[in-house]
C-alpha cells in the first residue's frame, strides 16, 4: 500500500516535470501580452499582470492591417487545405487500393527536402509568370505542405478500412467511383477530418513561404508578426500579444480535439515541411 502511494507521487512528479516546461513558455507569453510596458521591462520580472491590460492588443490592431493579414492567412491556408483534400482524398484512396508505394516514397522524400529547395524554383517560376507577391503564389507553395500530409494520413486511414463492404459492392456491380463515393468516403470521414485539421495547422504555422513570396499586402500572420519585430520599435507587450493572437487558435484546437490530433500525428510522425 505504501509503495503504491510512493509510486503515485513519483508519477505525479514526473508528469509535472514534463508538462511544466511545455506550458510555462505559453504562460510567459500570456503574462507578457497582458502586462503594461513598464512591468514587461522591470527587473526582477513581474509575473502576474496587475492589473491586466488590453493596451498591447490595441497596439497590435493599431500598428498595421492585422485583419488583412488574418484574412490572408485564412485564404492561403484555407484554399491550400481545401485543394489538398480535393485531390488528396481520392489519391489516398487510390494509393491504398493500388498499394502504390512509389508515390508514397516520393511524398516521404519530399518531407526530407528543406522548404527552401522548393522555394528557389517556385520563386523563379512565379517571377516569370508575374505572380510574385500574390496570394495565389503563396497558396500554391503551401500545397507543398498540405498535399503530402493529406495523402499520407488519408491513405493510411483507407488501408485500415475493412475490404468486405467494398467487395460486396463490387459483386453488386458498383463502379470504383461509386464504391469510393458511397462506401469508403463516408467511412473515412474521421481520418479526413484529422488530415484537414493538421494540414491547416501546419500551413497556418508556415513562415518561410510567405516570408519569401508575399508582398506587403499579402503577408500571412507569421510573416506579419516577424516584421513587427524587425521594422518597428521593439515593444515586448505588443509583440507577445501578436504572437499570442497568431498561435492561440492552434493551441485551443490542439487542446479541444487532442485525441484526434494526437492520433493523427502518431499515425506517421507527420509534420509540415
Amino acid at each position: 500500500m505504501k509503495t503504491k502511494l510512493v509510486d503515485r507521487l513519483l508519477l505525479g512528479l514526473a508528469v509535472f516535470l514534463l508538462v511544466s516546461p511545455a506550458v510555462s513558455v505559453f504562460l510567459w507569453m500570456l503574462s507578457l501580452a497582458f502586462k503594461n510596458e513598464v512591468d514587461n521591462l522591470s527587473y526582477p520580472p513581474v509575473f502576474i499582470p496587475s492589473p491586466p491590460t488590453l493596451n498591447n492588443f490595441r497596439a497590435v490592431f493599431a500598428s498595421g492591417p492585422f485583419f488583412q493579414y488574418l484574412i490572408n492567412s485564412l485564404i492561403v491556408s484555407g484554399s491550400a487545405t481545401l485543394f489538398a483534400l480535393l485531390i488528396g482524398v481520392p489519391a489516398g484512396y487510390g494509393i491504398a487500393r493500388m498499394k502504390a508505394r512509389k508515390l508514397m516514397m516520393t511524398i516521404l522524400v519530399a518531407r526530407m527536402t528543406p522548404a527552401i529547395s522548393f522555394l528557389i524554383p517556385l520563386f523563379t517560376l512565379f517571377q516569370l509568370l508575374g505572380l510574385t507577391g500574390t496570394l495565389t503564389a503563396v497558396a500554391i507553395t503551401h500545397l507543398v505542405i498540405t498535399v503530402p500530409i493529406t495523402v499520407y494520413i488519408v491513405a493510411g486511414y483507407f488501408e485500415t478500412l475493412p475490404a468486405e463492404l467494398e467487395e460486396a459492392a463490387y459483386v453488386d456491380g458498383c463502379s470504383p467511383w461509386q464504391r469510393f463515393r458511397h462506401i469508403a468516403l463516408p467511412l473515412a470521414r474521421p481520418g479526413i477530418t484529422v488530415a484537414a485539421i493538421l494540414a491547416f495547422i501546419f500551413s497556418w504555422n508556415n513562415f518561410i513561404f510567405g516570408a519569401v513570396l508575399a508582398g506587403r499586402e499579402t503577408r500571412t500572420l507569421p510573416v506579419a508578426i516577424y516584421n513587427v519585430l524587425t521594422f518597428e520599435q521593439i515593444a515586448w507587450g505588443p509583440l507577445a500579444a501578436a504572437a499570442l493572437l497568431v498561435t492561440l487558435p492552434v493551441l485551443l484546437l490542439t487542446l479541444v480535439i487532442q485525441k484526434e490530433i494526437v492520433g493523427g500525428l502518431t499515425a506517421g510522425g507527420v509534420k509540415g515541411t
Partner: protein
Amino acid sequence: MRKPSPYLWFIAPAVIVILAVIVFPWAFTLWMSLFEWRIGSKATFVGLTNYTDLIGNRRFLESVAHTLIFTAAAVAAPLVLGTAAALVFHQKFFARGLLRAAFVLPMMATPVAIALVWTMMFHPQQGVLNYLLSLVGIGPSEWVYSPRLAIACLVMVDVWQWTPLVMLIVLGGLASLPTESFEAAHMEGASRWQTLRHVTLPLLMPFVLVAAVVRMIDALKTFDTIYVITQGGPGTASETINIYLYLQAFSFFQIGKASAVVVVFFVLVIALSWLLFWLRERSKYYE
C-alpha cells in the same frame, strides 16, 4: 497490354500537382546548380564550378559543422527525454489526455510565435531566464548573444519544441507491444527495472529508431526558430546550412550557387537517413 487500373484516375490529379510543386523544383534545382545565375542577369553554364567552389568556401563548411553539431544534440536529447515521457504517459493517471495535449503544445504552436517569446526570454538584461538563474545563484548568461552559447540555446528551443513528437511515436509503439513478453517477465519475477531494461526498451527500439530518423530530418531542416532568434548570429556563430542557403538565395539572389548548396544538403539528408537505417540493420545481428 494490361488494362490500366481504374484507380489511376483517383491518383492522377495528385500526381500532376506533386509533379508541379515537388518534382519540378527538384529537377530545376539540379539543373540550375550547373549555372552561374544571379536573378536579373543572364545565366551562364559553368558545369560543376558551383560545387567545387563549395569545397573551399569556409563559411559554407562552418555552416555544415554547425548543422551537424546542432543536429546531433537536437536528436539525442529529445530521443532520451521523449522515450522517458512516453513511458510516463503510457501510465494511467488523472486528466492524462489533457496533460498529454499540453505536453504536445510546443510542437503544434506557430514556430515564429514561440521563437519570439524565447527571444525575449533570452534577453541578457530583462530576460526571465537570467532572473531564474539568479534565483539558484548562477550569474547572468549572454544566451544567444554569446557566440559560444548560441547553438546550445537554439538546441534548447528545438528540444523543447520537438521532444513531444518523439514521445508520440514511442507512445504509439508502446501501445502496440505484445503483452505476452510482459506477462512472461512478470511470471519469472523480474523487477520493474529489469522488465524496462530487458523487455520494454529492446522491444521499443524500432520505434525509437523511426523517431530518430524523423527527428534528424527535421533538425537538419530547422529554419524558423534559428532565423527568428539569431539569424545565424552573432556573426555567423549559429549559421546552419539552411540559413546560409536562405541568404545565398534570397538576400544575394545567387540562384545557381544556392541550388548547388540544396543538392549537397539533400545528399547529406539522404546519407544520414541511410546511415541510421544501416546501423539498425547491423544492430540486428548482434541481438
